């Protein structure tokens, strides 16, 4: 009897119309409440929310640096999930002023993602699912931890203009765990623009490219540019959100 009473309230208070304001949150919501539920409940997501596949069909509320507030309103959400790292504070404020139920998640930290997952889970009223995922995350961290020798690496997000990864990005932390020291770790930005000379000067041992590389020829050009033979091309999409997708992708790093 008590069990039933305990069960019903929590379900009754579950959210039914969720709007996420950046791609990372979209992925996590799907993970935490499960695809089946998420398909029904995720009524709006920011542009570039593309994982899992079905999220592409969810109505877009605009790109996350500039969310279309009117669109969000028109979806009549009962929960809007923003991220302090990606969404504009004044837009978050505006949504609150419009009496929407907005939760703002803190900046994600790769090594302490479990806390972040638990917090999101709490808001979604899926504490159990969240704690499972948090545990799993930590387990994966332990598994990923390097058994290899440290290597100095250069992370190329984009060639023109040259954008790399700085110390403030989860990519920095995640690859560090794998044993790759980011040559630009000292830069206190997430994705700084750097100079080619700086890269050549720092002489990394490995290069990770997160852009589309068309063919073998292109790859050879990149190898030439950095005077390196150890160049690995990775899918930008897999690595651009601090999500389980990232974990899976990290496992594929040689």
């Amino acid at each position: 009897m008590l069990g039933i009473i305990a069960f019903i309230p929590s379900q009754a208070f579950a959210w039914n119309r969720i709007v996420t304001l950046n791609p990372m949150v979209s992925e996590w919501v799907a993970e935490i409440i499960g695809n089946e539920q998420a398909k029904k409940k995720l009524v709006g997501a920011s542009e570039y929310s593309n994982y899992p596949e079905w999220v592409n069909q969810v109505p877009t509320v605009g790109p996350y640096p500039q969310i279309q507030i009117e669109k969000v309103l028109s979806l009549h959400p009962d929960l809007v999930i923003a991220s302090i790292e990606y969404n504009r504070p004044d837009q978050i404020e505006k949504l609150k002023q419009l009496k929407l139920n907005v939760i703002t998640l803190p900046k994600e930290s790769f090594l302490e993602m479990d806390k972040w997952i638990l917090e999101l889970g709490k808001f979604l009223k899926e504490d159990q699912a969240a704690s499972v995922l948090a545990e799993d995350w930590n387990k994966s961290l332990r598994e990923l931890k390097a058994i290899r020798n440290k290597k100095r690496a250069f992370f190329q997000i984009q060639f023109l203009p040259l954008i790399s990864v700085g110390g403030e990005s989860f990519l920095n932390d995640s690859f560090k765990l794998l044993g790759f020291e980011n040559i630009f770790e000292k830069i206190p930005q997430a994705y700084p623009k750097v100079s080619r000379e700086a890269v050549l000067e720092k002489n990394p041992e490995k290069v990770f490219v997160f852009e589309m590389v068309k063919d073998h020829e292109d790859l050879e050009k990149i190898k030439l540019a950095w005077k390196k033979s150890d160049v690995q091309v990775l899918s930008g999409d897999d690595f651009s959100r601090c999500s389980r997708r990232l974990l899976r992708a990290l496992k594929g790093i040689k």
Partner: protein
Amino acid sequence: MFEEIAKGAERDQVTKKITLFVLIVAILLELFLRIDSSNMMLVITELRLPRLVLAFAVGSALALSGLVMQTVLNNPLAEPYTLGVASGAALGAAIFKTLGISMGFFGLNVGAVFGAMLVLFVLFKIVFKTQLRFDSVVLLGVMLSFNCASMLSIWMALADPVGVQSVTFWLLGDLSRVGLKTSISLLFLSLIFFTYFFRFSKKLDAFLFGESMVEGFGVSLKDTQKVAVILVSILVGFCVSAAGMIGFVGLMVPHFVRKKMGSSLHQKVLPFVFVWGGICLILSDAIAHAIAFPLELPVGAVTSLLGAPVFIYLYVFQKSKGENVA
């Protein structure tokens, strides 16, 4: 002689009616275009209305500033954007904001005013020293604009690296960032400045034949220029602080109003410049908001898209006429 006056008055009446009509259409578009009926009142009052008020305030203020600058510099191509004043304002605001100096007016940063004034000051100094021709003034202005814009980019890169959205805001304009209170106060400011300029229409008229003729009309050149610079700086400064850099309104509106009215006398032209400036920006904003929904186009991009060709046309037209105005 009397038929001329009568015709003129009649033409003015028609212009007034057209103006009112277009204003109403613009307001309706801004408020209702692409609106979701399920949330209409909320969206209109909380989101559309502040934008509408701000659009009119900034549009009218920029048009006014453009007109005054064109008069006082005797250059039909002058306006806050082309002369780098807007860029200076953006730079000033960005610097003050980052340094934590937040004194302002209803939340608008006063650093923008200082930035604007500095650019105008530099501009006047150089023009004064070298007696530049009109196209050179514009070239100088464009250079100052680039200078400030690049300084702004550098500042942003160093002081606000995650500020991608900020750069778009400053460089391309955004009418959705300030609230209704600030918008209304900016509107009042614009209205007050309009009244002031209107009162001193005759003094502004004295500039129409060039700097050397100003005093011949009994008007103090230096004093009027100083006052104009200060007022325009304040106006442009606060506009940029509220809405980022929005160009070409100050250029297009005075030009078209003068053309339509067939006159450059400020008493005639000022009211229409004021209102049409507002109308232009309201329409641009309505377009910017609705055309790629849910993507929000920056309003400055829309005004530039429409205004830059006009600028080019005017520039070529002026050159071919061989006008050599300093």
